[in-house]
């Protein structure tokens, strides 16, 4: 029964994927996407609710199917060959990418066919961590797919000169969702590697969607770095097969082996760092912002990058209390600080969101590296809250870009007044990212509390990184909330599908905050109780205060809606020289007052953050790798 359900989750999305390739466009494509997305989401939620309700712990699903293993091996080789051929034509990158791909193919064939890596007895498994990723992929994935129907239609209208590749687009989206289900449910390291590479493939092709110079260049960069990550993964598998230590093909068995499995866990953790765009591997995520909004929202904010931290969270019990674990946490914390600082200097909304994603993933990596009950609690909840809020923000920015013709934050000034609903969605997304009482803040609070005793240096880095996040979010929020004195030209209506999807995500952001204790108790606590049976109960009393704050925040507008307006509107203070909505300048001409945000270039440029990111990130990653293999 379980096997059928899990298999359904992995196999079902392939049907809408192939249908999309065949149907290619029109209302039939829309129908395929609707049914595929809703079907996947319902299936994921059904499995999740069933699992949570059953109170089960770790569920291993044995499967004896050598033909399946061969099939997956064959598909993996196909994927690697495809990527190999593509990488040969890469213009900017060096020749090492095809070499690495070839090396990975050889490794995989050797390990699988040569029998050096034992076959997994139970290739699939289900536990709370996996279900968490599954639910995120299922719900957010389905919502983004629905949004994409409307968004890609508009893309078509705005850029009729580009070829209409929507069939391929949705094929890749559903293939990706299948791969994410595979990652969430795999207990076999070989299968995990396969699904991992499929996500690399999907990401590469999806970044390339628009087909212009920038897209191709950035897709190549993403491929190059993700291939490097895959090489780390393969290296881990090689170490597992050839090195000292446990010989097993299963993730759970690896975890159960304890300390001897640390080198493998660290190498696989490095693959996770690359997938989650940690420094020094973060450039590919920034470059991936050239892709259409649904790609950015789904792959590069909510789901694919979560696969990386998922792997790190999975191995966190092995990292806890070890030097490699602390170094990995250091990578995460430094990434959090430097990415947050760099976001302050950006005015392109998608780049701000990208840097923020990199930073928050860094926070989760820090949680995984340090480990322990509280840190893991915070890390898992960060996965959930970040996926929802960041997904919402990307979609809102995408819709705003189509309305405004620009995704610069300066052009979004006054958006709440100009587009009430879209503006509200964006505001809720931003609030959800940094402000109490929303989930992200609560999780960050717990991170700080968990880190202070266990790793004060990490806590200090997080404290410093916290401040710039406040700066750039408040700056953006302020631009949205500005009430422009002069009415600006009307904007087109946002398509209802887009608003609907955003509305669901916004409702989820708010509801998740209000239902925080329930979410913690159902989705996360049982997993932690199993891993840390001796730990005292989680003290969630302070959250009661937070909930009070939440209710006050939501209740305030109602009070204000009821109170009467206080009088006529005043003019802005412009030293008495107001003229219409602007002022009279020193040449006695009327001039509009134009506002521009601060980007702190004078302070940030001398810090050479890009270089610092590369050196610090590379140094810490190398140190972690060395510490791991030498342990």
């Amino acid at each position, binding site marked *: 029964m379980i096997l059928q359900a899990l298999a359904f989750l992995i196999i079902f999305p392939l049907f809408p994927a192939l249908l999309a390739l065949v149907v290619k466009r029109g209302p039939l494509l829309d129908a395929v996407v609707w049914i595929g997305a809703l079907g996947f989401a319902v299936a994921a939620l059904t499995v999740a609710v069933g699992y949570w309700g059953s109170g089960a712990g770790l569920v291993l699903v044995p499967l004896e199917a050598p033909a399946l293993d061969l099939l997956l091996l064959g598909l993996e080789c196909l994927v690697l060959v495809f990527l190999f051929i593509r990488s040969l034509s890469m213009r900017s990158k060096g020749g090492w990418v095809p070499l690495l791909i070839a090396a990975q193919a050889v490794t995989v064939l050797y390990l699988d066919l040569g029998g050096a890596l034992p076959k997994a007895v139970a290739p699939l498994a289900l536990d709370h961590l996996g279900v968490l990723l599954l639910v995120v992929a299922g719900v957010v994935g389905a919502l983004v797919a629905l949004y994409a129907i409307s968004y890609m239609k508009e893309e078509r209208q705005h850029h009729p000169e580009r070829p209409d590749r929507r069939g391929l687009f949705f094929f890749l989206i559903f293939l990706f969702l299948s791969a994410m289900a595979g990652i969430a449910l795999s207990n076999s390291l070989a299968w995990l590697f396969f699904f991992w590479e499929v996500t690399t493939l999907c990401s590469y092709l999806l970044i390339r969607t628009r087909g212009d110079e920038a897209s191709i260049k950035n897709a190549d960069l993403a491929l190059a770095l993700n291939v490097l990550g895959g090489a780390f993964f393969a290296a881990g598998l090689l170490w597992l097969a050839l090195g000292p230590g446990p010989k097993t093909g299963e993730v759970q068995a690896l975890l159960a082996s304890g300390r001897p499995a640390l080198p493998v866990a660290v190498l696989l953790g490095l693959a996770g760092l690359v997938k989650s765009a940690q420094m020094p591997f973060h450039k590919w995520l920034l470059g991936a912002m050239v892709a259409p909004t649904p790609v950015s929202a789904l792959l590069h904010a909510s789901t694919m990058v979560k696969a990386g931290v998922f792997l790190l969270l999975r191995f966190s019990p092995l990292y806890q209390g070890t030097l490699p674990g602390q170094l990995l946490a250091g990578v995460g914390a430094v990434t959090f600080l430097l990415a947050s600082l760099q976001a302050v200097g950006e005015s392109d909304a998608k780049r701000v969101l990208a840097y923020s994603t990199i930073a928050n993933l860094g926070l989760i990596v820090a949680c995984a590296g340090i480990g322990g009950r509280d840190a893991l609690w915070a890390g898992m909840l960060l996965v959930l809250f970040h996926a929802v809020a960041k997904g919402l923000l990307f979609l809102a920015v995408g819709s705003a870009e189509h309305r405004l013709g620009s995704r610069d934050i300066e052009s979004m000034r006054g958006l709440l007044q100009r587009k009430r609903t879209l503006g509200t969605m964006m505001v809720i997304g931003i609030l959800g990212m940094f402000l109490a009482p929303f989930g992200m803040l609560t999780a960050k609070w717990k991170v700080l509390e968990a880190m202070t005793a266990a790793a*004060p240096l990490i*806590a200090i880095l997080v404290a*410093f990184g916290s*401040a710039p996040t406040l700066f750039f979010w408040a700056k953006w929020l302020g631009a949205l909330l500005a009430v422009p004195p002069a009415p600006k030209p009307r904007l087109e209506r946002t398509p209802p599908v887009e608003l609907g999807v955003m509305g669901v995500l916004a409702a989820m952001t708010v509801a998740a905050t209000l239902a925080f204790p329930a979410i913690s108790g159902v989705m996360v606590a049982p997993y932690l109780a199993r891993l840390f049976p001796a730990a005292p109960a989680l003290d969630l009393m302070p959250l009661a205060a937070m909930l009070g704050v939440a209710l*006050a925040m939501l209740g305030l507008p109602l009070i204000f809606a009821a109170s009467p*307006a*206080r009088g006529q509107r005043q003019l802005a203070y412009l030293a008495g020289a107001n003229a219409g909505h602007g002022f009279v300048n020193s040449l006695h001409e009327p001039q509009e007052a134009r506002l521009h945000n601060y980007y702190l270039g004078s*302070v940030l440029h001398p810090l050479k953050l890009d270089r610092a990111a590369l050196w610090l990130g590379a140094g810490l990653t190398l140190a972690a790798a060395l510490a791991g293999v030498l342990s």
Partner: protein
Amino acid sequence: MTPLLGALLYVVLAPVLGCLLAGADRIATARMQRRQGPPLLQPYYDLRKLMGKRGAEINGFQGYYLTGFLLFTAGAGALFFHGGDLLLVVFALTLGAVMLVMAAFSANSPYAHMGAHRELLQMLAYEPMLILTALGLYLATHSFAVSAIASAAQAPVLVLPGVFLGYLFILTIKLRKSPFDLSSSHHAHQELVRGLTVEISGGNLALVELAHWYENVLLLGILYLFLAPWGVAAALAGVALCYLLEVVVDNSSARLRWETALRSSWLVALALGGLNILLVPALQKGF
């Protein structure tokens, strides 16, 4: 003192204390400038006058943001005097401060816009040290709960000299005193250096003043935590001395450029706060 009583007393008495504190501040400043200064209750008269003003607002949303500012600032203080989680108090205070900044942004006027940015710069400057203060107090007393910190056996200031000094440094920013009165100066009242409240008037401005009183009592309360085990009299005397020091610094320094303010705050936070935190276990062994 039960937690609930503490919170209630704070909500009722903090405005009174804050008002007297502000008045004493102005009198001390005046005496340092060899003049008489206003009556002690002058801030109260100012508040009542503001509440009595009639007229227009720049937009209909400021009242909402500023009520939120007052509510969450007072709420943070109430949580503090309830004995709650210190880190949550810091984040609730941040929430209130963001509401004030939003009130200024919503006005969409040049001076308010710049003032809001300068306020955000101040927040960028003091936030790390504020969080490090909470982390430091945790390391010294093994609890984030204010009730536990206040009843610690050993005065936290003994193992947290750096954090204490760092907190005093950013207290200058939080109290809006020179050399860090970049966005809401007490002395100059216009355009760039008071841009934050340029478009806020009348009853709304009264909300801001009231919230500042609540906030000042809370900030001095955090200062008190460092000295609490020495007894009420000694700790209060220490707090009063530190506040006097802030007034002296205010009167004897010129305003810094924001780049300098930002860099020096982060440097102090790192050098005094961060270093101290890393050394706390060693210092604790020493004592």
